[in-house]
Every structure is written in structure tokens, then in C-alpha cells.
């Protein structure tokens, strides 16, 4: 079941820390209540987005899923700006 989102950040092919660095920038441009969908190919992003969402202010990780496309995994993160 896919999550509703307001903006998409395609970070596929980006190495750590860029998916998270770029997600922070995009979140700053959203209105409170809006959701950013981040697509990444770095497996480490799954645990890192969880750890980051716990300490970051005004951010909530509302969902994560793994999609398989052409034999490669895409790790999807839904991040909501809360305030």
C-alpha cells in the first residue's frame, strides 16, 4: 500500500550521506503536514532515516518500504514535516 506524498526526491544512485543531506534540504521547502517521498538505492539509508527521524526536530518518518525494480532494491522513505 503506497503512502500519499506531496513531493518526490529521487536519490537513486546517490551514495551516503547525500540521500539524507538532500532530503533535509527538500523538507525545509515543504509546508507543515506535507510529506516527502525519498527513493534511494543505498541500503544503509533505511536505518539512517530511522535514526535521523528520531532526533530531528519537526520531522516524522511516516513510512518505509522496499521496492524491487530490475533486480535492484529501491528503498523508499516517507518523511512528514510536522511543524
Amino acid at each position: 500500500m503506497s503512502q500519499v506524498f506531496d513531493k518526490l526526491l529521487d536519490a537513486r544512485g546517490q551514495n551516503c550521506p547525500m540521500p539524507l543531506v538532500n532530503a533535509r534540504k527538500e523538507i525545509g521547502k515543504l509546508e507543515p503536514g506535507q510529506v516527502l517521498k525519498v527513493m534511494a538505492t543505498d541500503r544503509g539509508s533505511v536505518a539512517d532515516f530511522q535514526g535521523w527521524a528520531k532526533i530531528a526536530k519537526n520531522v516524522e518518518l511516516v513510512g518505509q518500504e522496499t521496492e524491487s525494480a530490475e533486480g535492484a532494491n529501491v528503498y523508499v522513505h516517507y518523511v512528514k514535516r510536522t511543524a
Partner: protein
Amino acid sequence: MKERGDGTVWTAGNLLERLEHREKFFVLDVRNRDEFERFRLEGRRPVPAINVPYFEMLELGGKEEMVDSVVASLKQGLAEQLPKDMPILAVCAKGDTSEFVMQGLRRLGYASATLQGGMKAWGEHYATRAIVETPDLAIHQVSRPARGCLSYVVASEGKAVVIDPLRHLHPYLDLARTKSLTITTVMDTHGHADHISGGPALAAKTGAAYYLHPYDAIHPMDVLPATISYEYIRDGQTFSVGRHELATLHIPGHTLGLVAFRLGDRYLFTGDSIFIRSIARPDLGGKADAWAPLHGRSLRKLLGLPGGITVLPGHFSSLDEADEMGRFAASLDDLKKRNDGLVMLQRESENGFVRYLLDSLPKFIPEYVEIKRVNAGLSAPAEDDAAALETGKNVCALSQAYVASGGGQE
């Protein structure tokens, strides 16, 4: 690979040399906490380290870019946790983020370096050391230093037998090429739990026969037969390597099908039975009560071998177990005096030793059940998942707290 001329980039090979030579440096590990807890850099001595996940630096520093956030974090208190009198090695999962961290440290004047390829490269680094190398006989110890896994290439007259090859095949293929060896036989001393065997793949690649004891071709928890193709190893069976012969000893305990290989009175490949500082645990098949007595009897059988024989184990727990040449090897007589498990074996009754074994079991690693499936061909993980299964140092030995704490007293 050489490190970058200015010393800012260390390869896994550079790192191993520094650890072996007890060089002083400090680690700033920016992975998340779970990864740090599960798999840390360890040398002959503990490497001083702190863990500050990179995303905490981003929030603490509050800057948009990584390097700026590192600098801001240092200025806001992180610097107080870092020593000024030794190099700071920035470490992350794959070596990209640590490059930014190194740059941030440099900007504030720290002597800093980044670990190229991160902990992934360190975990997959191999080292090859000669135990003996004469025209008549060569034994190469091939290790994965970060994981504490050991394997062997035994060569004579251009022929080679590979014992317990690890998951990546390049160290064995490279050695065969540079030493002009034909790999004729590949064998596993047992069905491994802590790492994925390279045995079946190496045999397929070289056309060699792959051997395993049939008891270890049944997954002990699933009770399902292996789907890999293998030849049976029997107790007493001999394998020729050029002018030499390896004789098989069936020594059940760590697994039911564990075997050791003996090369005359000179070398004993013990697999997961006798290590340098300790002995193997009997519980990874989930049947510790039933297997511990077998383990004790098998170890007593090995104790009866000539004392001058050189033990070549399947694992180590610390780089400090190596000799000054970085090799993990010691005579049986020597180990009778300083190996915790063998000391207990000589001191205790049969029942007392079983009690010691069962009281010294480290935490069970859940991934080990799945790794045994992979080794039996019952599961075939993708590269990412295979690497994740093998994360961190092996836990195949008994915990050593027992002897150190004077355990065993009634």
C-alpha cells in the same frame, strides 16, 4: 593499493598494518549506533573510538552541507571528545561520508584520515601469510582479519588443496595464479555458521572436487538435506597434495560432521575445535546438551596427538592472537599451557568439562541459522543480503570470561 600520498586516505590494507603494528590513532565512527555496536574496529589492543552518527552531526551542526555540519559540530562540543595527539580516522559504512568528515576535521587542523571503502571494505579485506613456504611444501593462511576467519591453501609440486575457503574467491585464485598452482581439492572442515563458504563456488570455478562430511550436509535445525553438490568425507580418509598427504580425523562437537586434517606430525588443521586462545562452542546447531560431551571427547582425542604439531585453526577472536608475522599458529604443547579451553580440559573431569562448556556459551547469533542454510544450498541470498549476514566478527569460540573470572568453582 597505497594510501594517498598525503596520508588522508587509508585502505583496508593500510589499516591492517597499523593495527598489527599497534600504531596509535583514534576512530570517529559516523555510522548509526546499531552498526557501530555490531561491528567495530579492533586491533591487537582496543582502538579508542567514539560513535557520532553523521545524521546527528547534520542536526547538531544545523548546516545544509555535510562538511559544514562536521565543522559546526566540532565547534559545538564534539572537539572536546577528540584527542589532539594522535590521528583521527573517520569511519563510515562505505567510505563516502567519512571523506566529508575527514575534510571537516582537516579544516580545523586535525591530522585526519578516512577509511577507504568504509567498514564494508574492512570487512571484506583479505590477508595472505605463509606458514611455511619451501619447494617441497607451502601452507598459506588466508584470513579475513575483520571477521576473524581463517582458511588455508596447502601446496606441493604445483598441486593445491584449499581448506575452508571464505566467500570471496579472488584470494585463492590470485594465489593459484601467482604460485602456478592447480587447485585439485576444496574442502570444508564443517558446515559453517558464521560465514558463507566459498567452497562450492571455488570448486565449480576450478573444476576441483568439493568435500564435506555428510553429517554437516543436513541443516541441524531445519533437518533438511543440502542441495549443494559435494563428495563425502570419511574419518581416516586421506587426500594427497603433491608429495604430502592430509589425513582426516572426525571430531564431532562444534558440528556433527566436523573434521580436522593432519599433515604428518607437522601440521593440524583444526577447523572449529581448537583455536589459539580458546576452543569452539558446541551450541550453534541448537543441541548444546547433546553435542557438548561429543566435543569434549573429540578435544581429548586431539590432545593425544604429538605435542610438537602446529595447530592451524579456523578462527581467531583478536588480532593479538597472531605472532609478530601476523600468523595464527602455535604448537599443541604451547596451547595446552595457554589455551583457556585446553587448560580446563586437562583440569576437569568429563562431566566437569561439559559443565564448563555449557556455562561458557556466548550469545546465540540468529543470523547463523540462515548462514547454515546458505551453506547447505537451502537459501541463496543476493550479494547485499549475503554481506549483511556476514557482518561483524565471528562468535564461534566460547566466551573467555569463565576462566578469567575463576569460574568452575562449586
